[in-house]
Structures are given as C-alpha cells and as structure tokens.
C-alpha cells in the first residue's frame, strides 16, 4: 500500500502555516514551558531525550524522504559523543588530578589498563576547536565511506539496513574490546569541565539544555531547507522510482551519500550534546538496540515529519522512563509492540494522526455553525463558505487563523 497523503512537498514558502504553528508550539515548549515547570534534574532528562531528536530528524531525511533505512545511527551518535567525551576526559585528566596514577596526566581507564602514554590519536583532542570539528567531521567521514562503498555499488533496501546494523555491532565490540583506549564497556566517564566551566552544576545543565534546543532548531532548519529544495523532492522521487531519477540525469548514489552524511552529522551533534548533558558516553549508546530505538522514535513521531520526529523522541523516551521505572522487564516488549503497532496502524506516526485529525479541526469547526444559521436557501449563496481544503492536498492549504 502506498501512502499518498504525506504533506512532504508544499509548493509555496519555506514553511506552510501548520508547519509554522507546529514549530512555534515546539519552540514554546522547549524554550519556555519546560524550563519554567521542570526542576533541574527533570530538565536535564528532557535535554537528554532531545539529543535523540537530532538522530530522529536525520532519519526523517534518510528514511522518510530518501527511503534509506539505517539501523546504525547509534554509530554516528556514538562517534560524535565519544569525540566530545575525549576532549572532556583529557581536560579532567590533568597531572594534578591524576597524581595517584602510575602515569599521571592520562585518562584513568588507560592507567588501569596498563597504557603508559596517551595514544597519538587522542592528542588532538586537547584542542576544543579540533574537537568541535571532529564531532561532526569524524562521523560524516565515516558515513561518507560507508555510503561510497554501499550506494556506489547499488546496495540498498534491506541489505543496507542489515549492513548498517552490523557496523553498529562491530563498533560496539571494538569499543568494548579496546578498553585501554576507549574506556571499554564503562565508556568514558567522570567528565567534569569544559574549558574550566563545570558542566555538572544545575546552571550549566540549564545552559546546555538551551544550547541543545538552539542546535536542534538549527538542524530542523537545515532539514527543512533540504526538504524544500529540489534535492528533497529528488529524494522522494528516488524512493519511488530510482531508475527514472537515474535516467533523468542524476547520480543517484551522490544524493544518497549526501543525505546519509547529513543524517550522520545530525546524529553526531546529538551525541556530543548527550555527552555534555549526561556527563559520560558509553558503548550502550552505539550498538544495535539503541540504533533501533532511534528508528522507533522516528517511526512513532512520523517518518515524514521533522517536527513529528522530535515529538517521537520526546514521548517515547518519556514513556520509557516511566515504564522502565515501574516495569523494567516489560519495557523492551512494550517498545517492540509500539513499533509494530505504529507500522501496522499508523504508518505516518503521530504527525499523520495530527495532520489527519487535529490540523483540519479549525476549518471543520468554522464550517459547522453555517447550516443552522442559514435556514433559507436564498441566503446561502451570499455567505461564502470558508475555502475547504480539497481532498488530497495538504491540510496546510486550509487557512488556520
């Protein structure tokens, strides 16, 4: 069954009215409501949830628009997070702070694993500038290599998904196995300051939460720009008829590599913000399970809607925290069941439900009072009905006042 209702291609303006309203509601929630009503601990928790929204927004581009289902986004989330963690760990590992180690001045886990000198590839992470570049550049470079290897050879569909999943598994095993260089299964922990600024205080957490929100909106802006461009329409076209796009003169692989890299960049920014807000990074955010969870956030929110993806990440994580506190052993089943339910019954996710039922409400409500007011047929033509959105067009076509 093909879904023809997705409102992915508005013809006019950068944002349709419903999209603008949706973005405004989200902005008010993230920047005003949540900071006002939540205590620092809860706010930090929401900040953590929102780092997953970066991944989900990237998946809307890759999967929703381009049809490329990556089950290994945790790899990019993790790489971004690890790059950030390496910088913070080095800053926390001054010779003074690590004086009790047999080799002072290197991260504690290295010392525990009989590593006696900082590995060469850790050295550049003394520099914040290098780190900030690496947070995005390393995952994007990795995504580029994977993309070149797969899309140039026309590997797609399920095969692509399986391979990305395998990559997630491999990277987890690698990180766990190389304990002396990566912190192993515990990850890189005990992160304290960013250029002397203590990231563990409530104030710092609030600032980081807001920075996270701003970055998320920047990514949403970029995603919207791509979707609105011809490249965005090409992605949809490729998902439908890859051959037709190819024989219209486009290098299909280049577009797939591009969008996969953008998805990786978003995930990496989310990962770095996760490290900053949560204070550690570990392989449990890299592997298969977190990667699939990220796809579920996107699916629940609606894989054709970038705002839906943010809601999906927020709500599923909220549910996860709630459920796993009360029924820790049942949560995984609940999540699996949720995914199946969404795929079977709400393939457009929350965004689809919104577009179908909530967004047309204002127009419907305005139409309703008309019949009782005008009993005489002669008066009817004088009162023009508000233009109803014709079937098949985006609900945004209906004026929302």
């Amino acid at each position: 069954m093909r879904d023809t209702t997705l409102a992915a291609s508005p013809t006019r303006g950068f944002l349709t009215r419903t999209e603008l309203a949706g973005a405004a509601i989200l902005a008010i929630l993230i920047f005003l409501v949540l900071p006002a009503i939540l205590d620092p601990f809860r706010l930090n928790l929401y900040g953590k949830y929102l780092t997953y929204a970066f991944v989900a927004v990237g998946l809307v581009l890759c999967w929703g628009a381009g049809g490329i289902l990556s089950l290994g986004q945790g790899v990019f989330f993790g790489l971004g997070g690890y790059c950030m963690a390496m910088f913070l760990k080095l800053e926390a590992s001054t010779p003074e702070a690590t004086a009790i180690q047999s080799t002072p001045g290197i991260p504690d886990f290295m010392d525990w694993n009989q590593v006696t000198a900082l590995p060469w590839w850790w050295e550049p992470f003394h520099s914040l500038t290098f780190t900030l570049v690496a947070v995005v550049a390393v995952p994007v470079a990795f995504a580029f290599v994977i993309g070149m290897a797969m899309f140039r050879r026309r590997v797609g569909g399920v095969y692509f998904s399986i391979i990305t999943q395998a990559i997630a598994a491999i990277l987890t095993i690698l990180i766990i196995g190389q304990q002396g260089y990566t912190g192993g299964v515990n990850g890189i922990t005990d992160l304290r300051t960013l250029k002397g600024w203590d990231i563990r205080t409530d104030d710092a957490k609030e600032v980081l939460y807001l920075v996270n929100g701003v970055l998320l909106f920047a990514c949403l802006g970029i995603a919207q720009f791509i979707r609105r461009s011809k490249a965005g329409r090409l992605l949809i076209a490729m998902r439908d008829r890859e051959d037709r796009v190819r024989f219209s003169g486009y290098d299909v692989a280049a577009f797939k590599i591009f969008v996969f890299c953008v998805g990786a960049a978003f995930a990496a920014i989310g990962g770095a913000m996760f490290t900053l807000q949560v204070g550690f990074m570990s392989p449990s955010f890299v592997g298969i399970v977190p990667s699939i969870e990220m796809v579920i956030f996107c699916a629940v929110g609606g894989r054709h809607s970038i705002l839906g993806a943010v809601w999906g990440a927020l709500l599923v994580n909220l549910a996860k925290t709630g459920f796993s506190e009360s029924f820790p052993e049942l949560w995984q089943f609940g999540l699996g069941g949720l995914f199946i339910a969404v795929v079977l019954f709400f393939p457009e996710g929350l965004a689809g439900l919104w577009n179908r039922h909530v967004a047309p409400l204002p127009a419907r409500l305005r139409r309703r009072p008309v019949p009782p007011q005008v009993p005489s047929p002669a008066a009817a033509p004088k009162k023009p009905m508000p233009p109803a959105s014709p079937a098949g067009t985006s609900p945004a076509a209906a004026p929302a006042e």
Partner: protein
Amino acid sequence: MSIENPRLILSVEDLTVSFDGFKAVDGLNLYIAPNECRVIIGPNGAGKTTVLDLICGRTRATSGSVEFKGMELLKMREDQIVHAGVGRKFQTPSVYEDLTVFENLEISYPRGYSVFGALAFRRTAEVRERIEEVAEVIFLSDHLDQKSAHLSHGQKQWLEIGMLLIQDPQLLMLDEPVAGMSVAERVKTAELLNRIIADRSVIVVEHDMKFVEEIATRVTVLHRGKLLAEGSMAHVQADPDVIEVYLGH
C-alpha cells in the same frame, strides 16, 4: 562535430549481452541517422527492450560498441549518458507518484544535476514557463498541481514523455509508448509523438503495427537477439523471414 560518420547519430556495432550464457542480444548492428524515427519490432523475448537498456546503460554489454555523437556510451555511467543527450522512457509508466505533475516535470528540467546544484536550484520564471509549455504539449496543463498518483494510465505515459521532452534529448528511446492505452488516448499519443520526434532521433519499441506504420521512418525486426530484417514498413512486411517468425509464433 567531428564524428566518424556525420550522417549517423548512433552506431551500434556487434553488440552482445549474455546472461549466464543466454545471448539476449547477439552481435547486433544498428545505425540511426539524425531525425530518424526507427521502430524496433519483434516477437516477445526478441531482445527489443534489452537493446534500449544496453544503449542507455541500464544493462552492461558483454561486448561490442555503442557510439553516440563520437562518444562510447558503454564506458559511461547512466547519468553521463543522459547528459550526453540520450533520453529513455520505460515500458510501464515511471513517474514519481508522491510528487505533483509540476514537480515531476521540474525534476527533469536539465539544470542542477549535482547535489549542491539541486540544493541551490530555484524555480525561476524560465523554469516555470518551460514546464507550463511542456504541460500544454502533453495535455496536462490543468493537472500541474495534482499528485501524479491520481493520473490515469494514459496521462502517466504522457507525463513521462513530457519529462523526456523537457530534458530535450537528441536521441529519444521509447519503450511501448501506447501499450495499455484506450483508442482515444492512442490517437492523441500518436499526435504527440509526431510533434516531438520532429527534430530529434527516436528509437521506439512497439507492438502496435498500426501505430508503427504511422510513425516509423525505418523498421528493424529483431528475433532471438539478432537482426532479422531492416527497411521500410512495407519492405519488412513483405520479408518472408519476418512472416515466418510472426506466423510461426
């Protein structure tokens, strides 16, 4: 342009493709002149569609050469072949169902082929005019804002022809453009094709003999991947081998 034979736009020589030992196209020679409309006919499994696939790079040839305006197409990628000036219409209508008619045509507008070109692509007045112009030709002016999923079968075929038209290829390859059409649609399509083949070379694969007669300059008959006969429609129809193949089928 300095090509070996300026009177030919396309020279296919000794073209062979073998799928696990089965030769779908076997030592085929085919020469197309500028502004010629060549129709390829033949029984099912003769290799007609495969020939088109080989020329446009969809299938890789086992051996032989395909020379277009002095360029060897067999060494080029599909999108490069398109940029060289070869357009291809598929047998089943291939349109982007989730996009509107306008957007379908816009994607085929020959500009902004690279990733960054596509990101920077703007819907200028020039683009708009050209799309409206083509929509007029393909009878879809009133459907520009409609999702192409809601078009009829015949309209989808026209849309795909329109997408090629906007691309403005020098060599246009059409695979069964009237298959599955109603009589009225077929007549309109013949009229449409007659308009668009005027200033370019065209290769058409078609079963509908009446339609072939209407548009063909020359006819090539394929049988089991090999050239069986070539010439005018009347000449081919009188050929005893051709009669044998078609009646024996």
